[in-house]
């Protein structure tokens, strides 16, 4: 069974910018799923459509087996989101925000308070817990968003660049917990540019490019592919697969003209 399914998702912004061009995606239940794509591929647009904050032009979204309309919001009780744009009011403290989030997700007051406190400790936000969120660094703000996405133990977590700006210690803790959640049956979709993180963390990966899915495979299969490549095939890493998929393998090899000159004048090698 799939926790998330997108069928023919299409989105055209004003000025005729086509962000999604019939995107299909299936995210199996209990899977740690990586969504990759170059800048402007449509990852954030797809996630914003699932979160109901961007209107789709066409296509179907199914979350936890149920079709989702533009104005539905009940499914959000079972889903946690970290979106590209922050989802909080900056003149609140993290404690106030998380306690309100807990109430929105219909947790009991005491339970909400307790979980908010635990999340603040987990994300190492105690020091600034009485300051307004607007005074936080971007990494800390990302942690606040993550904390709010986790507070109600969602069945499906959809995270847009969740580790961006987060320090390595917290990033490792977050990754460990995401793994644990997936083991317990939670489905996690992570959109990221950090190929290494996705490769190490995710069970399955999809690459989208120009609003369409161009590759979806189990990470294990990709590893196998990479392994074969070591023994004489084309690819050596997920990075190469990614570049080959979105740029035909040759789009990223250009060198700035003035660097070329420098190189030619010098040793002649890169």
């Amino acid at each position, binding site marked *: 069974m799939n926790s998330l399914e997108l069928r023919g998702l299409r989105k055209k912004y004003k000025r005729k910018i086509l962000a999604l061009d019939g995107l299909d995606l299936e995210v199996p239940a209990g899977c740690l799923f990586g969504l990759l794509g170059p800048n402007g591929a449509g990852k954030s647009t797809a996630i914003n459509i699932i979160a109901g904050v961007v209107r789709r032009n066409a296509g179907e979204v199914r979350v936890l087996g149920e079709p989702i309309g533009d104005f539905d919001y009940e499914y959000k009780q079972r889903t946690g989101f970290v979106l590209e744009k922050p989802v*909080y009011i900056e003149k609140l403290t993290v404690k106030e925000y998380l306690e*309100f989030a807990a*109430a929105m997700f219909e947790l009991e007051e005491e339970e909400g308070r307790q979980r908010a406190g635990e999340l603040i400790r987990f994300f190492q936000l105690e020091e600034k817990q009485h300051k307004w969120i607007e005074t936080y660094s971007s990494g800390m703000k990302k942690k606040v968003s993550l904390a709010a996405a986790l507070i109600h133990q969602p069945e499906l977590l959809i995270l847009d660049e969740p580790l961006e700006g987060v320090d390595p210690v917290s990033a490792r803790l977050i990754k460990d917990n995401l793994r644990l959640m997936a083991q317990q049956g939670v489905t996690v979709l992570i959109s990221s540019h950090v190929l290494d993180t996705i490769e190490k963390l995710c069970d399955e990966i999809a690459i989208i490019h120009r609003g369409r899915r161009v590759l979806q495979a189990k990470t294990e299969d990709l590893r196998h592919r990479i392994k074969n490549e070591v023994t004489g095939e084309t690819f050596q890493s997920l990075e190469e697969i990614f570049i080959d998929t979105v740029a035909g393998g040759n789009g990223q090899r250009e060198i700035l003209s003035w660097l070329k000159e420098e190189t030619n004048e010098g040793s002649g090698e890169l």
Partner: protein
Amino acid sequence: MAIVNAKQVEDVRKVPRFRSYLRLEGKIIRRYLHPEWMVVLLVGIILVWYWVEPDSPLIEYMNVALLTDFFLVSILGMYFQDFFWAGDDEPFFRFALPVDLRLTIRAKNLLILGVLLGSVAVVSGVLAVVFRPAPVQLLNGTLFILSVAFPLLHFGNMNTIRMRRKYGRSEGLSILVRNGLAFVGASLPYVVFRVVLGSVFLCLTFSVLAAAGWYLYSIPRTARLLSANKFELLEGS
């Protein structure tokens, strides 16, 4: 291990959420309400009070409360009718999370009503002490506030369903004037029922009906309209 059935789970998760909404909205209003407005307000009222002779016939019904409220509603207008825009990201916060819009509107409306009543009490008190006008009748004051409050809340609710306004520019002045006119309009039932007809009963009945209309019609309608316009509002945020 105890087995919890679906009904029990539902019971466990049922909590008095409205209290949480009130608490949150209270914090938001406190943090985005600028107390310096109150000083401007007080100065404005004092100037007008000097301008209007306290013993002129006009002042018989344009009493302290009316003048005070006129300025309060004009200045607090942004909290009445732009309550969805405390910060640029507020609509995004409301629509991305499973926020109950009806509870949000109810909480915001009640809180701004509380701010209005509190401000009326403080400013009227100051005026009464400083200028010693003709005694303000408590009954009339209460009837007046009750009769204008709910139509004004509805006016504000309907006006919040749009992009964020820009205050502090030329359009800010026109908004101020429009709010003042809305206030004069909302005062008409009091003038007709209490001042012209002299009826407490009619004035009170109107207030009760207005309150019922606010609760049963204005709140659900505002929530529906906000939801229906969410993509447009989000694009403007």
